[in-house]
């Protein structure tokens, strides 16, 4: 019977590990495969030579996109043939691409072209206020002259005969004549269909947001039909013309992941998955222990009888046991982490790692100790050494040194957090080790297992409960920060200045405002003006070429006391202004923290000035990409640690981690929605209706046709309470979808729990069954009774808890917390049942 149980236990263990790995993968893939199918269906009728060239901008840095484009073509080859290059842009976003890609970066790339090669940048958009020729020309003047010729912008919707004629007469015919390369780069194929008859290549730049902006200004969520329509368009309008079009990026895949981001309530994900992990760890530990214990005890005896010392036998057994447990943990954590971390990083997995680190450290220490003290049991330990190494590699998919340094940083900079973690982890580790060791060497664990169980349960309760509170508090603070309570006539300046950060900053002599985005420039200038007119050294730096608006080459400085310099970052670099920052406080105004450019600025500042500069980041919550990360911000506002690179796709190695963590830790992040320009945002209406007025700061008027932006102060009465309410509703994003996912995961965990406990007590049931059968009952009936009893207990407990949580669970954290408690109750019930059975058997 033991052999049978063991055999099935191994199967279950395998099932457990495989489930932990496969379930999230399958879930993810099942969703993705559906959308991949859409892509396949859209493309399957196409000749392989006529595939759409789609470059997703989402989650890519500007350089990456540029690389994607430029790597597709050998411009220098064309240039060597004295061919001209035509880059034709369409779509208002492409103006920013045009600006961001071609101007700052493309110059370098194209700089080596043949001097006879002209690069024509053609803007086909009609929704841009400022002609991009100024933008281009101003940029050209920096480094590269006579390379770019901006043809101008044209209204191509619908494509007019005039335009066709223009293209043929002025560009394409010309290009044909010179064997030139013409590339059409555009987005928004949905409503802006361009006749691309005479271009050589078509690149579809897709900046996938969860919303599509229609010409009317209305935003709608992306639907599957949108995707289909895009590809239908490609099929109908591109492929039959014989262009070589290449499918580059899994755009739809990206899209669905973005949708994930949009929908998932990260706080809850963190909360719940952390619980799931701890449960999985618990199950894995219990089961590996249970499965292996008989083997371990017997093998121990054998090895002892053969002359091995007890310490050697037990240490090797312990290593084996921990090894297996940890491998399962690492694999499961790795699986989850690899799936989610790219888009939704589960910070609390760090705690799983924190659980693993000391365990690994113990194992390695034991290994070292054993290798010093005596020869290991060769095959036995070699096997587990290999497994451990594999586990380490899998677990530390990132640089292990960095991972360890992160842990150390946390423990160093987050004393409270560290104390909590240590308080929870140490007893657990102690009890686990003591329990396992005690059981192995003779079963005198006594009350220790009970304490261990209590400790684990407490930790399960404390961690998520604390996190739930933190989440709630963070949410409130975000709302309060953006819409401070009890203030009816607030200005941006006051909102910012009320923050404790500024009371600290006010003591500094030198301030540096590093700005990104024209609106921020305005806000920052006002900020400086209002707050510290006496500030002696303040520099505002515009690091951006404001997309769609034009470079803010001149902005009226509102306070003569303040020296404000607004310029392109490239200029600043050349002027060495960044190097001039010394010994002050730098405040970054960044629209998107995920932009590598912004990160580069931060990195430059930090690397140039080290600890002399304090960095604060003021971000725009109105941007969808920022909204996507609201979960992070919630944590951040509470000074929760968050490695910056988890917000981005930036290679973390490019960023000095210590510096970042230090500075991000220093000050809370302010979330200030101040950008009424962006119309992508779901907050568009809110912004239009009131943000500007609410801020009471400025009415912004854009005067197209030149680069002068006039600003005036003013105030618009808005319903502040309504704004606050709407914002609160907004950040409490819809979690129905992910709730379903969580419930599914909960069911899986419950299934695992049930299966594990069934397996655990099956031997008892067997005894029970044998007894009943021996008393004359039918064997099948007895087995059914046993199963029914078990199901009944489980069902009653779970159903009761779910009902209670549904009634009480107005907040999701309560629901999940209740679910967790229900699991604990379930275990308790089963334990009680077990003892009852045992007692009954004894009687």
């Amino acid at each position, binding site marked *: 019977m033991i052999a049978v149980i063991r055999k099935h236990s191994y199967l279950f263990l395998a099932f457990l590990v495989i489930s932990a790995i496969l379930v999230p993968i399958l879930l993810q893939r099942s969703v993705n495969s559906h959308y991949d199918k859409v892509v396949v269906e859209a493309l399957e009728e196409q000749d392989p030579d006529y595939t759409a060239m789609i470059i997703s901008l989402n989650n890519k840095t500007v350089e990456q996109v540029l690389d994607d484009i430029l790597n597709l073509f050998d411009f220098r080859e064309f240039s060597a043939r004295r061919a001209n290059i035509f880059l034709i842009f369409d779509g208002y976003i492409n103006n920013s691409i045009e600006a961001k890609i071609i101007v700052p970066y493309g110059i370098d790339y194209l700089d080596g072209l043949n001097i006879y090669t002209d690069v024509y940048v053609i803007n086909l958009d009609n929704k841009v206020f400022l002609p991009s020729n100024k933008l281009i020309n101003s940029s050209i003047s920096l480094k590269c002259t006579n390379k770019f010729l901006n043809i101008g912008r044209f209204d191509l919707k619908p494509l007019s005969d005039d335009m066709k004629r223009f293209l043929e007469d002025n560009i394409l015919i010309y290009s044909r004549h010179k064997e030139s390369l013409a590339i059409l780069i555009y987005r928004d194929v949905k409503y802006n269909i361009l006749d691309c008859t005479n271009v050589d290549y078509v690149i579809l730049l897709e900046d996938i947001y969860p919303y599509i902006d229609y010409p009317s200004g209305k935003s709608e969520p992306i639907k599957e039909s949108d995707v289909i329509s895009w590809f239908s368009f490609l099929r109908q309008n591109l492929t039959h013309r014989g262009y070589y079009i290449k499918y580059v990026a899994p755009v739809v895949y990206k899209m669905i992941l973005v949708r994930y981001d949009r929908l998932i309530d990260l706080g809850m994900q963190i909360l719940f998955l952390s619980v799931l992990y701890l449960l999985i760890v618990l199950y894995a530990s219990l089961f590996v222990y249970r499965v292996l214990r008989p083997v371990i005890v*017997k093998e121990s005896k054998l090895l002892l009888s*053969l*002359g091995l010392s007890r*310490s*050697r036998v037990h240490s090797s057994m312990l290593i084996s046991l921990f090894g297996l447990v940890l491998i399962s943990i690492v694999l499961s954590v790795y699986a989850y982490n690899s799936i989610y971390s790219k888009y939704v990083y589960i910070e609390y997995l760090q705690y799983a790692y924190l659980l693993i680190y000391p365990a690994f450290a113990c194992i390695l220490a034991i290994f070292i100790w054993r290798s010093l003290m005596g020869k290991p*049991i060769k095959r036995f330990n070699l096997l587990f050494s290999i497994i451990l190494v594999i586990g380490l590699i899998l677990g530390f998919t990132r640089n292990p040194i960095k991972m360890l340094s992160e842990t150390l940083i946390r423990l160093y900079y987050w004393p409270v957090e560290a104390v909590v973690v240590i308080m929870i982890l140490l007893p657990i580790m102690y009890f686990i080790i003591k329990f396992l060791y005690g059981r192995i060497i003779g*079963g005198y664990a006594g009350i220790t297992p009970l304490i261990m169980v209590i400790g684990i349960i407490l930790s399960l309760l404390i961690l998520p409960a604390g996190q739930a509170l933190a989440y709630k508090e963070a949410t409130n603070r975000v709302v309060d920060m953006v819409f401070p309570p009890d203030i009816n006539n607030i200005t941006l300046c006051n909102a910012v200045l009320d923050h404790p950060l500024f009371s600290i900053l006010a003591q500094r002599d030198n301030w540096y405002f590093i700005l990104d985005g024209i609106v921020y420039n305005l806000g920052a200038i006002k900020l400086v003006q209002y707050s510290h007119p006496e500030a002696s050294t303040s520099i505002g730096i515009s690091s951006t070429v404001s997309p769609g608006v034009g470079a803010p080459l001149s902005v009226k400085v509102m306070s003569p006391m303040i020296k404000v310099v607004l310029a392109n970052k490239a200029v600043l670099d050349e002027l060495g202004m960044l190097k001039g920052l010394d010994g002050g406080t730098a405040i970054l105004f960044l629209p998107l923290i995920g932009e590598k450019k912004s990160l580069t600025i931060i990195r430059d500042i930090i690397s140039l000035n080290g600890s002399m500069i304090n960095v604060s980041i003021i971000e725009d919550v109105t941007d969808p990409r920022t909204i996507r990360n609201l979960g992070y911000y919630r944590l951040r506002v509470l000074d929760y640690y968050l490695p910056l690179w988890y917000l981005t796709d930036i290679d973390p190695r490019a960023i000095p981690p210590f510096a970042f963590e230090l500075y991000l830790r220093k000050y809370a992040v302010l979330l200030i929605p101040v950008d009424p320009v962006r119309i992508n945002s779901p907050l568009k209406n809110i912004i239009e209706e009131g943000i500007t007025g609410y801020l009471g700061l400025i009415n912004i008027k854009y005067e197209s046709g030149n680069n002068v932006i006039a600003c005036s102060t003013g105030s618009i009465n808005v319903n502040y309470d309504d704004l606050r309410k709407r914002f609160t509703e907004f950040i409490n994003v819809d979690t129905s979808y992910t709730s379903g996912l969580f419930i599914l995961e909960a069911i899986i965990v419950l299934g695992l729990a049930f299966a594990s406990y069934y397996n655990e007590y099956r031997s008892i049931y067997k005894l029970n069954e044998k007894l009943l059968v021996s008393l004359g009952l039918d064997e099948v009936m007895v087995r059914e009774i046993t199963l029914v009893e078990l199901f009944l207990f489980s069902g009653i407990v779970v159903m009761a808890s779910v009902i209670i949580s549904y009634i009480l669970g107005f907040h999701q954290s309560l629901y999940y917390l209740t679910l967790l408690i229900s699991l604990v109750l379930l275990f308790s019930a089963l334990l009680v049942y077990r003892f009852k059975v045992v007692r009954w058997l004894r009687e």
Partner: protein
Amino acid sequence: MSVAEVIKSIARIEHVRVDDVKVVYENGVTALDGVKLDIGRGLTVLLGPNGAGKTTLLNVVSGIVMPRRGKVVLNGILNLLGLNDSNRALVRRLHYSYLIQEDVFLEHLTVLENIVLPYKLFKMDPPLDYVQEIIEALGINHLLDRRPTGLSGGERRKVSLARALVKAKDASVVLLDEPTSNLDRDSIEVLLDIIKQLRRDKVVVIATHDQLLGDVADVRVYLRGGRVESIS
């Protein structure tokens, strides 16, 4: 001279004295209580009902189980139970061969590898001729390349016996716990022949219910309730 060197310097163990040994398990059960026994060369068989303490006594004599009180003195000079864990293990490794009651194997090794495990474990060369002799005697040649999983109860016992008997070649104390369980009559006869050879120059202690072994014993020790009831 260190204790380990002393242990290594012992050529053979000729005599084992169990002195007032008391073993109490965690659950409060007294397994041995005041057991005194002098065991010399030859065959000593421990007899008694289940729970009498036979296996526990073997465990004490081997130094695996530490009694609450008492001594196990080897050759009249070395108190096995006074040694530390590693030195006790050294004594077992150099001077003991112990067949434990359960048939336990390292399942990932073949039968042959399990038989020579006592040597391979310590990176020593097994006496292959003797190994072959034992294997043939027990009739398990056909099992050598198989894994222990799937062996019958009798086959498992034979493999366990083979492992212990191979180790017994270099041991001066041979402890066998229920060696005849699951064995057929022919195999028991073979085992008896081997034991008769071993008893000539070794301290052989067997815990058994098999009267056949009792009949050939030099000394029969009857245990009951953890006490020595009689010695004959």
